[in-house]
């Protein structure tokens, strides 16, 4: 490493201004600090909490504060630490395999998330397509309408759906009033209500990436396809759909991943009929106060979600590379 030599100032033509090399080293240091920020962020806000959850998941339930044992007693010295580690075991994970509630809840969550993702795609694609085809002047307003729901609390919006879907709710009043059905439909507290809730809540996450990919598309591609003998419909399937695929894939991941662990929607709209792992997790923590089992549930959920998350990251990376 080169050290800055003390250079006499005011001596006419100095080869390098004083502190020249120092400045460069300083710039390097600043760069390193900036690169470190996201890693520190991840460490403090993700890895440390996850470490705590992991630790609780291998602890035992205890009627104490906090409600698990053992707790680390550093004052007890080396033997206390050894005792502490000896008390940790995978009992809670074994328990998860013994009670079929858990794997059923995981499977049911995956199923509900999958079906909701498909439904969101079916609803979202035409909306995104319509937005991309709308006159240029309308697009900011349409975009605003898609984002607007985020300005209200998510909880309030889900609560509002209770008012709409309830047996005496707006929807049933309208349907009965119009004579479409004789007696109110039982929607609330069924999986259907959960699907409606998830589709409604996550729709923007589907629409925006699809819209972005459709908006990027050169409209002359469709004219070229028509010119080469395609009908409008064939041109849609041969050109528009493949070119919007990156948006569709991104949108599906953005809906599927959070939907698997969804708590509030099944809790408020799904009633006791709907089995979702997020709800189980909530009940373990707050009703049973069994933190170790709840932590084990959370850890397994994370392990399950790592697969789609990694796939999603890979897809985004591939898109970035293709774009360059």
């Amino acid at each position: 490493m080169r050290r800055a030599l003390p250079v006499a100032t005011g001596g006419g033509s100095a080869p390098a201004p004083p502190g020249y090399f120092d400045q460069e080293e300083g710039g390097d240091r600043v760069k390193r600090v900036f690169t470190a920020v996201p890693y520190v962020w991840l460490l403090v806000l993700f890895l440390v909490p996850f470490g705590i959850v992991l630790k609780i998941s291998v602890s035992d339930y205890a009627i104490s504060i906090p409600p698990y044992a053992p707790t680390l007693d550093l004052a007890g010295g080396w033997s206390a630490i050894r005792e502490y580690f000896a008390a940790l075991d995978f009992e809670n994970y074994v328990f998860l395999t013994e009670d079929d509630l858990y794997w059923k809840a995981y499977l049911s969550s995956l199923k509900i998330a999958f079906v909701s993702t498909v439904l969101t795609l079916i609803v979202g694609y035409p909306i995104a397509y319509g937005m991309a085809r709308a006159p240029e002047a309308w697009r900011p307003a349409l975009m605003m309408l898609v984002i607007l729901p985020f300005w209200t609390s998510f909880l309030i919006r889900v609560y509002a759906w209770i008012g709409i879907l309830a047996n005496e709710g707006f929807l049933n009043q309208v349907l009965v009033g119009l004579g479409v059905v004789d007696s109110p439909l039982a929607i609330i507290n069924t999986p259907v209500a959960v699907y409606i809730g998830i589709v409604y809540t996550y729709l923007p996450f589907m629409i925006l990436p699809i819209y972005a990919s459709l908006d990027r598309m050169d409209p002359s591609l469709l004219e070229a396809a028509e010119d080469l003998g395609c009908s409008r419909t064939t041109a849609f399937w041969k050109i528009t759909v493949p070119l919007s695929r990156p948006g569709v894939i991104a949108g599906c991941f953005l809906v599927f991943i959070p939907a698997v662990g969804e708590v509030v929607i099944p809790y408020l709209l799904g009633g006791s009929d709907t089995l979702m792992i997020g709800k189980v997790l909530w009940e373990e923590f707050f009703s049973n106060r069994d933190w170790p089992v709840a932590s084990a549930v959370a850890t397994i959920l994370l392990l399950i979600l790592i697969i789609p998350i990694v796939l999603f990251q890979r897809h985004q990376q591939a898109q970035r590379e293709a774009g360059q």
Partner: protein
Amino acid sequence: MNETVFAPWDDPDAVPLIKIENVIKRFGDFTAIDDVSIDIFPREFFALLGPSGCGKTTLMRMLAGFESPSQGRISLDGADMAGVAPNQRPVNMMFQSYALFPHLSVWDNIAFGLRRDGLDRDRVAARVDEMLKLVQLERFARRKPHQISGGQRQRVALARSLAKAPKLLLLDEPLGALDKKLRQETQFELMDIQERTGTTFVIVTHDQEEAMTVASRVAVMDAGQLVQVDTPQRIYEQPNSVYVADFIGDVNLIEGRVTKGGDDVELGWGDNDARLFGPAGGHLAEGDAATFAIRPEKIAISREKPEAKNRVQGKILDIGYLGNLSTYHVEMPDGTVVKCEVGNRSRVSRRDFTWDDEVWLSWSDTAGLVLPS
């Protein structure tokens, strides 16, 4: 051998491939195409030339079927094209942006139209390979459009639009995205391919040099109307209006008043009753306002008073050295600046003229053209 020149437009028996008859196209209040009629003959390389917004692209899009005329008739090979969708026409188009499908390889891009026709696998493959050979891109068949250069993309677009062997190929500013050198090479390649395939080409361009190079006939358009339809040579040498003379190439325009009408016009101009002589490019009678159009390369420059029908004296204002030629800007006593181009035929030559020299410019009485103002 006395081979016949390709000029079906002069043959009264020739049957045009495309007949555009009194076509008008309006977008709301705006008239994009104002009563245009053109006959385009088989195997022609026809250029639609004009500044942006003159309606040339609209006219091309009507041929492709993306727009329909508000009034008038377009027929192709005798069949009326009204109501025929773009995918039903024996017409293909090469788009300005090339519009290559980014998710398909070069090979699949070229095969796209053939597959829509339901050709069997072997025939599609044979035709695609033939097209790849035509544009010399065999080695790039498996690449995606973003993995090849701009010039190669242009050739893929050409191959794709030719693959279905259309009766008419439309080219929308096909060379606009290429740099100058590549553009010039590609112009000749385009002419070569047109000749080999025998397809009728209609090219839209705002680049007059490009239109002049490639086309058998050029239609000069302005504000939705046809100004002149003629061979490049006639467009250049016998423009029918000041607009065409000014749009195509470099020209000196000298305003004056006709002092003797007829086929050979005498034009009075400037303060000192100077006279210019040239053939009339339209009907001109004594007293009419007219413009004398003379190309810079047809003017000779000399220090001595020359023996020529047309001669003017002035002072050199500017000299431009372009390598292959030198341009002199000569200011007349009345302030008119006349541009004159002299070829630099020998490599080592002393410069005869310099700034502020008094010189004579001269040209023969057939070199220029007198056009109605």
